[in-house]
């Protein structure tokens, strides 16, 4: 029994326990939250249909293999698998697009392969950078974002390089 096997059940138990302790109606509140989850799924579906179809066509045409071989000289320097390079381009731009690419990588190479693990780590530890910047600064009508883009992109770059290194180290 490993630590990661303990993690999820214990987190669930802890949250329920705190709910009971504070006399929250845990069942009612759970159901309400789950209904919100249904809405989230419905919200991402239209974009997912568009992007998965585009990416499926692009892949069938040989586009993803071409992209991978184009960036291979650069990704090889960092020990990053060029098969997962498509994720680097789409991740900062679109959450649904990244999900579509990610699912494709996992289905093709398997979740427990080196490529699958690197892609999983990347997906779990990065955000839709450009979208987040646009929403937050746009919402408060900030037109001049000054130096905000550089640190945000440096986080993404670190994420790609560190993902490959961390997977090599841990497995």
């Amino acid at each position, binding site marked *: 029994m490993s630590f990661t*096997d303990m*993690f*999820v059940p214990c*987190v669930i138990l802890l949250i*329920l326990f*705190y*709910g009971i302790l504070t006399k*929250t109606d*845990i069942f009612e*509140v759970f159901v*309400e*939250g*789950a209904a919100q989850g249904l809405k989230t*799924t419905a919200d991402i*579906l239209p974009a*997912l*249909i*568009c*992007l*998965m179809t*585009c*990416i499926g*066509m*692009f892949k*069938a*045409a*040989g*586009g993803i293999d071409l992209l991978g071989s184009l960036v291979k000289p650069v990704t090889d320097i960092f020990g990053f698998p060029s098969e997962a390079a498509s994720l680097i381009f789409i991740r900062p*731009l*679109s959450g649904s697009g990244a999900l*579509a690419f990610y*699912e494709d990588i996992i*289905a093709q190479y*398997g*979740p427990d392969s080196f490529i699958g693990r690197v892609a*999983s*780590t*990347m997906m*779990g*530890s*990065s955000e839709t950078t450009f979208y*987040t*910047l646009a929403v*937050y*600064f746009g919402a408060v009508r*900030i037109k*001049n*974002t*000054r130096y*905000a883009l*550089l*640190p945000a992109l*440096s*986080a*993404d770059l*670190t994420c790609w390089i*560190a993902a490959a290194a*961390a*997977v090599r180290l*841990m497995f």
Partner: protein
Amino acid sequence: MKVFFFIIVLFSVILGTANGSMDKVSQAALTECTAAVTLAVSLCGTICFWSGIMNIAERSGLTAKLSALVSPLLGKLFSGIDRSGRAMNYIVLNLVSNLLGLANAATPLGIKAMEELKAEENAEESATDNMIIFTVMNTASLQLFPATVAAIRANNGSGAPLEILPCVWIVSVAALATALIVAKLLAALYRRKRMRKGVRT
């Protein structure tokens, strides 16, 4: 996004013609849309379950409690704003919500935090250093449990869907640290530039 949509289809048609794989491209156009629905349905359970659990965390006050715990630590990152003010309060709530994967709650809280920062620092059209630090922390994504990733791994027959958690945590922290260091360095650089300009004029 509209440019991306067009370009990727355009390249698919060009490459498909060049490689003689138009039959596969055509098939993908007809079947991948169904695959998208299948994917959304297979993720729906996980998304709903975690939304439910995290709704309990929020309503029972667990999120607020955790926020109070990390607040002093986060206060050090933001200079010149009221530690117990409204902006700081929203900042902490947003970051804790992100950490727990409460995306639905995090975005409105984040926008509130930006509004309060704008008011407290009298910003107009230019972003302040604190606004940038806060937004950058949001783009770096520190998340304890990436439920979607775990669900896709499990659906594809992973022997241990959660074995990547330690990797995800290490990489997230590394990315966040890089972002903060770069942001702080740039803030210092900009401050010096402005001071030099001030001396000249």
